């Protein structure tokens, strides 16, 4: 797929993205596009290359070949902090919070990229820096309220229960003011009740005008919130479309359940 100009309503376009680790092709020639304001899901069996694809988008890995275009800008090969500045935030499959910082500080670190205080301002606590710190603290508290863990603001991230850690990670990602939010298995290990709450949270995030791109195993969640789905297997895209279609796709069923004899 090499279709010239990117359409204006696509926030993310991957073109022939390939990532090789030595002889192993983790992501094989995947092309996909995500429309502004939708919930897009990436599914596939374990080891299909979903997280590798995320890492290629966010700059943790450099793609072997192919292009990543975000919001009309070619970001292929950008470093992770640049990608965050452009407006892509992510959470991690195995939660990676700053364990021994308070929840509030975790979120304030997320604000880092939108803050302007220079070394000089911080060294001498200039009024401008104080104002910014006050503002950022308020904003961080708002975000903690948004995901529903404001009460835990002064606790170490490490001490939160699992579900709240996932929420904190989302709050931290939202603090970077992303246009696109990548969620890597946000519902893993959740109870059914928590899954419902997560879906509500994703809807609220959409309401803020943020596009959501998620990896998820739980079919109820995927079917419940996503508008379009791409299925990866062994690094290859094997299906794409709305949930109902994908669910019936023969190759998808094979990938998940194995070929029937």
């Amino acid at each position, binding site marked *: 797929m090499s279709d010239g100009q990117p359409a204006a309503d696509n926030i993310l376009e991957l073109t022939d993205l390939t990532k090789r680790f030595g002889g192993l092709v983790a992501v094989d020639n995947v092309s996909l596009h995500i429309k502004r304001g939708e919930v897009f899901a990436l599914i596939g069996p374990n080891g299909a290359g979903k997280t590798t694809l995320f890492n290629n988008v*966010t700059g*943790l890995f450099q793609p072997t070949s192919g292009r990543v275009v975000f919001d009309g800008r070619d970001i292929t090969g950008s*470093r*992770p*902090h640049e990608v*965050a*500045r452009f407006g892509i*935030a*992510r959470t*991690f499959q195995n939660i*990676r*919070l*700053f*364990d*021994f*910082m*308070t929840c*509030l*500080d975790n979120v*304030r*670190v*997320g604000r*880092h*990229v939108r*803050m302007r*205080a220079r*070394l000089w*301002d*911080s*060294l*001498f*606590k200039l009024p401008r*820096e104080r104002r*910014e*710190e006050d503002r950022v*603290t*308020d904003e961080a*508290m708002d975000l903690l309220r948004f995901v529903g863990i*404001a009460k835990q*603001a*002064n606790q*170490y991230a*490490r001490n939160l229960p699992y579900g709240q850690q996932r929420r904190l990670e989302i709050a*931290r*990602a939202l*603090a*970077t003011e992303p246009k696109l939010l990548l969620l890597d298995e946000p519902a893993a290990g959740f109870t059914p009740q928590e899954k419902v709450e997560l879906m509500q949270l994703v809807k609220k995030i959409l309401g803020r005008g943020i596009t959501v791109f998620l990896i998820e195993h739980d079919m109820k969640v995927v079917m419940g919130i996503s508008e379009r789905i791409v299925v990866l297997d062994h690094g290859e895209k094997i299906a794409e479309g709305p949930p109902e279609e994908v669910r019936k796709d023969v190759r998808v069923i094979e990938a998940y359940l194995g070929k029937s004899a």
Partner: protein
Amino acid sequence: MSEPVKAGGRRSIFSRLHLRERMRDRDQAIYGLLILGALIYPEAILFITGNPAYIGDAAHAGTWVLLAIGLNVVVGFAGLLDLGYAAFFAIGAYTYGLFASAQLGASPLQHQYHIPFWIMMFVGLIVAASFGAILGFPTLRLRGDYLAIVTLGFGEIVPQLAFNLDRWTGGINAIGGIDQPWFPAWITGPWAGANSIAVIQNSTCRVSWASGFFPCFQFSFDPVAYYVLIVILIVIAVILVSNLYRSRLGRAWMAIREDEVAAAAMGINTVTTKLLAFAIGASFSGFAGAYYGASIGLVSPDNFFFVVSITVLVMVVLGGMGNISGVIIGALAIYAVLYVVLPHLPPAVSDLASTLGLGSLNQVNGDWPGLGHLVERLNFLIYGLILVLVMLLRPQGLFPSRVREQELKHDAVQEEETAVEQAAAV
């Protein structure tokens, strides 16, 4: 970073100051005691011993405090292991030594400089910070152990250069006769009363670019002057470093320490942020180096070997990594052990033996070197034992930052849990 922040709402000035909480807060209490101690110490020691040399010792300890505060930025905040910290100390000291003595007159430059200390202090700071950045730029992409090895190498290279570039640095002969700081005497000002200017004026000075002499206050080898200077420098350093700690940059450092990948994904440029930690840490060292050169009046390569880097690291770790007040206490404690306790131990032990009626132990007898001499030989064993004991009793350091405390407690709890599990499995 760990202090609670009340959510939202404007606070009145009084609640902003948190006076009551401050009284209870451990770190604030330590600062209070330290300031009080710093104010009382010179008067008390003069009153008790009448010997101003002890004030000079305290000023020397201050150099170590400054070094420890700087290394704490690198090791405690940003979590980068720097084993060559003395190199930056050397760079600061040599920068001052070269441009504030007759040294460069004998060098290929054929011209001696006598730039005032107050300017060179900042030059030393900037030069050391630049070297920190130059060393950091190619190496901070390395992680953990590799970075430690590179800094270790750098720490060895700098004193060797000082040895071998003897046309510039004097090599083994060191740089002597370094200028001491001075104030123009009018700095006392009119507030001191009509003729009080004579109180502080003790000599006349001449700046290289000015013609004629003017009254000034020479620091010379007056320990009190150096003591006052180092206390002021330390106070400034503590204020600046705590400001950084509670800022965007401080949070970024801690985020990198906690999880570098997540920090990068949150938009923190990990390379430049670590570079800043390195350069800022180095700048404190350079600052301390300039002060050291001025107060000793002699800069020799011997003063900057590996043992200096390690001693500063021990101060940081033993005091409580990441906690500024703890690090200051650590520096003072180690200084006291190294320069007060250990040198006085052998005579004290022999005296004790004599008073106990065991004076025969002090006699040299065959292989027995005498008790005092034996203790002297065992000095560093005793030093090591003290360190091991402290770390066993307080593995987080004397006054750990609350974060570290939590971290280590957690690890301890986890170890306990796994131990229980293993026991159950067997």
